[in-house]
């Protein structure tokens, strides 16, 4: 099994190597091949989860200078591999419909992620992890002729390097290279705490946790849509996988419960911050990227809760929290892939990512619109879609937070509960704004007015994640049953009770006290809807009439604007106004300024609105300034004459001799 998987993995670099000689015809081969391989990965992972995981570690015949590399698959890797396979297949199929670009980087990106997930030692994991970063950087930099994309790519790779360095140090603190050896001797004391900090810094950076998220919205917007889909849907999950692997698996079962608190705090901050920023962004892909920050935060909270519950010996609740994290990771991976692909389809069809240039696409792209509705319903955590099921689990875990035995932890869980609820509501607002601006209303630009329905490859690519989002939403229990090994791993194997949180196709929480049966909810919704429809048809059979829209008192649009005056429609900034005023001022330095003409002036009044991410002001700018100051000091060494250089050498020599004299004398 593992051998077959390893051979399958090798297919990716092979495809990358094929890309160059095949030239323009390579698109079909590379993307088609990638889709096939991804489906195989998903099948293998799903099959393993359903019918038994492969045992042991597969040693590779080659490796780094100090030892062999190894591959292994346990429940956790298989779960994330499943996500990679499904999302990767959709994104690859989507890419078939576009121009063949980034053909070398794409399979390598997939390869890096798969390698990181299947690695059985820290070097292989980080090799895959960093290969994933570099390959995706190449995809971000694909349109490098635009300055903004270059800046995004640069920031992205620097953050990726930071993540890599922190993770290397974290693994170094764990001592051994092979996971089995690390598990045998878990870290203790300050070493363990340092691992916690470094893992949070490293994986948190790559996952886009606040305040290390600055790269994420930029990079996801710059990459081609299928690449952003995977970066957002899967790559951040790989980072979370590493976080879970490090903190909940490799660091051993003995770590204290408070380890969960920083995860909970960072996760909650990311959730609210990301969701809020998604409400203010005016670019479809940036908006979706910010929503990714939110959902990554939610998954992190689940992991943190699992740690908290584990530390308090509440095995069942730890399993609940871990299940929430895992299910949400899968659900988000799929619906975010779907949404990014929708954004890509919209970009292809309407030629813009700016909300203010879209509108009314539901008429031109009805199928895409329906599929988009599925994705954003899940992102907004609406029943009966997958996002609701997983957030329900998370909320249930948080609602059980009072069972923790410390007041601080209880309060943290309560505050986190409020923040999750707020994040969910903010996400709903953001998704509504996205759909409303892009698909509803009237077109806002001629290009948008001439949009056509997405191509067949693109629709096919949207269909798979949309179907899965619906499926997981309806039968989350069945999905979680697959995650059982992973939940056991995360919750601390011994403590989990036999009866899991998956109950048939539904979910159960709080030792069976609360349950969710989305299938029945969906059935009831359908029943109510159809019933209402039948009654209404009976009582009110008249057909609808069409009439001109009431334009709220605006004057009629000029002749040349055949699709209506975009200025009379809500704008992206206008829709963001309530939240910008309510929350944006404090969290995002949101601002509004009205430039009113004085009486008698003929110029129009202008409203300037905007916001600034505080990570730039408080993190990036000071860091750059500090770097420049140090560099300026260092530079003074360079201005020395030869005599000065000799003096430095002489000083070194004398210093070392004096040191020697001191060491030996004393």
């Amino acid at each position, binding site marked *: 099994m593992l051998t077959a998987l390893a051979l399958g993995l090798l297919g990716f670099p092979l495809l990358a190597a094929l890309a160059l000689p095949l030239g323009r015809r390579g698109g079909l081969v590379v993307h088609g091949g990638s889709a096939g391989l991804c489906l195989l990965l998903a099948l293998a992972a799903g099959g393993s989860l359903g019918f038994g995981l492969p045992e042991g570690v597969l040693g590779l015949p080659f490796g780094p200078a100090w030892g062999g590399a190894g591959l292994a698959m346990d429940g956790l890797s298989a779960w994330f591999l499943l996500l990679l396979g499904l999302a990767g297949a959709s994104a690859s199929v989507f890419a078939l419909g576009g121009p063949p670009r980034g053909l070398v980087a794409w399979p390598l990106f997939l390869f890096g992620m798969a390698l990181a997930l299947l690695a059985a030692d820290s070097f292989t994991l980080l090799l895959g992890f960093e290969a994933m970063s570099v390959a995706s950087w190449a995809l971000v930099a694909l349109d490098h002729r635009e300055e903004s994309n270059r800046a995004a790519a640069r920031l992205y790779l620097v953050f990726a390097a930071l993540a890599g360095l922190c993770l290397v140090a974290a693994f170094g603190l764990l001592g051994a290279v092979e996971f089995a050896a690390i598990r045998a001797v878990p870290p203790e004391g300050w070493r363990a705490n340092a691992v916690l900090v470094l893992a949070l810094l490293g994986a948190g950076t790559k996952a886009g946790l606040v305040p290390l998220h600055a790269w994420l919205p930029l990079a996801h917007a710059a990459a081609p849509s299928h690449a952003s889909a995977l970066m957002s849907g899967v790559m951040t999950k790989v980072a979370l996988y590493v976080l879970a692997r490090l903190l909940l698996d490799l660091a051993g079962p003995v770590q204290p419960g408070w380890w969960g608190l920083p995860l909970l705090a960072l996760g909650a901050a990311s959730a609210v911050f990301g969701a809020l920023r998604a409400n203010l962004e005016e670019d479809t892909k940036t908006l979706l990227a910010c929503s990714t920050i939110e959902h990554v935060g939610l998954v992190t909270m689940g992991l943190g809760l699992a740690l908290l519950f584990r530390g308090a010996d509440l095995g069942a609740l730890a399993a609940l929290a871990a299940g929430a994290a895992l299910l949400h990771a899968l659900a988000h991976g799929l619906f975010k892939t779907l949404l990014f692909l929708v954004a890509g389809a919209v970009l292809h069809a309407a030629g813009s990512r700016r909300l203010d240039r879209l509108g*009314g696409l*539901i*008429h031109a792209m*009805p199928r895409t619109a329906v599929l988009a509705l599925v994705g954003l*319903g899940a992102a907004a*955590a609406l*029943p009966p879609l997958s996002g*609701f099921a997983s957030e*329900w689990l998370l*909320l249930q875990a948080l*609602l059980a937070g*009072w069972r923790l035995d410390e007041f601080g932890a*209880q*309060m943290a869980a*309560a*505050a986190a*509960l*409020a923040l*999750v*609820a*707020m994040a969910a*509501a*903010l996400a709903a*607002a953001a998704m*509504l*704004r996205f*759909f409303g601006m892009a698909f*509803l*209303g*009237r077109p806002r630009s001629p290009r948008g007015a001439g949009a056509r329905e997405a191509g067949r490859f693109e629709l096919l690519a949207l269909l798979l994640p949309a179907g899965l989002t619906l499926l997981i939403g309806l039968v989350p229990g069945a999905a979680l049953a697959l995650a059982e090994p992973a939940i056991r791993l995360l919750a601390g194997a011994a403590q989990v009770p036999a009866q899991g949180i998956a109950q048939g196709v539904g979910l159960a929480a*709080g030792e069976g*006290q*609360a*349950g969710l049966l989305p299938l029945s909810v969906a059935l*009831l919704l*359908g029943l*109510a*809807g159809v019933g*209402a429809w039948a009654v*209404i048809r009976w*009582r*009110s059979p*008249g*057909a*609808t009439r*069409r*009439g001109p*829209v*009431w334009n*709220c008192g*605006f004057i009629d649009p000029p002749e040349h604007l055949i699709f*209506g005056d975009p200025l*009379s429609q*809500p704008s992206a900034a*206008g*829709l963001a*106004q*309530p939240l910008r005023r*309510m*929350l944006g001022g404090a969290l995002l330095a949101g601002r509004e300024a009205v430039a009113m003409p004085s009486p008698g002036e003929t110029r129009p009044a202008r409203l300037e609105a905007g916001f600034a991410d505080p990570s730039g002001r408080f993190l990036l700018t000071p860091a750059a300034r500090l770097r420049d100051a140090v560099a300026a000091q260092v530079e003074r060494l360079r201005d020395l004459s030869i005599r000065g250089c000799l003096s430095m050498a002489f000083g070194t020599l004398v210093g070392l001799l004096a040191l020697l004299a001191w060491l030996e004398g004393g």
Partner: protein
Amino acid sequence: MLILGSILVQLLHLALVLAAAPLVIGLVRWLKARMMGRRGASPLQPWRDLLKLLRKRPVLAENASVISEVAPFAGFAATAVAVALVPSFARGMLLAPVGDLVLLAGLLALARMALALAGMDVGTAFGGMGAAREMSFSAFAEPALLLCVLTFAILAGTTNLDAVSATFHDGALGLRVSLGLAAVAMLAVAVAENGRIPVDNPATHLELTMVHEAMLLEASGRHLALWDYAAALRLTLWLALVAAVFLPFGAAPAGSGPLAWLVGLLAWAVKMGGLCLMLAGFESAVAKMRVFRVPEFLGAALLLALLAAALLFVSTGLA
């Protein structure tokens, strides 16, 4: 037998609530009118309005999409399912195991989303404005609601509404400060969710202040009827929720017979009437607040709910 009983209770409950919802609206309006010294329309007036609207042919804007036609049904369905989960005169309904408070919040969010989508469908300025405001308010209302749920979960050990109601009815909880705080928070959320004064004014069409009505400007005929009916159901739902949790007295326990149901029905009618009276009184007494003051109103509710939970932590932690 038990199952048959629960099915019967469920159906009766559904029929009762569906029938009562417009009456609740009408009652509140009538009470308000009386308090303000007017005669007021009959409490049956909303039912008459609904039937009249059903007879009218709906007019849709030229560029309205399928959303405009489907969203009313979706919004109504979500609200109707939600209302079916909140016990009224008796516990132990067929859907009680499904009746989870978090799910309830989800269903309400679904209904809200459907309404907001419909508001944005045509692309008029008011629809978008109302949708944005409605969604923004929920960012404060939902956390407050969930913190209230947390209080119940701590006391009852579950988020199942039926079980919570049963616990509060049977359990010797006594009077708790935290429950009082939670009740206030819950009422504030209920006011906001239903677009009542001081958050929104259901009777106004003054452009700059409206939230809920702004999204319905384009709806007409049966669509408007559905929206109005859903709004009525929602108000009923919230009042029933408050009644079920904080005033669980008199409701028939699970598996009881028709006599208990009758008692429960009476008790429910009294409770609902009382709540309507409170609502009308409150609405008559306060003024509508500015839109951007609403977060402060809801934020206060949120803090109250958090305080309630914190007090419970202290008391249960020491126990």
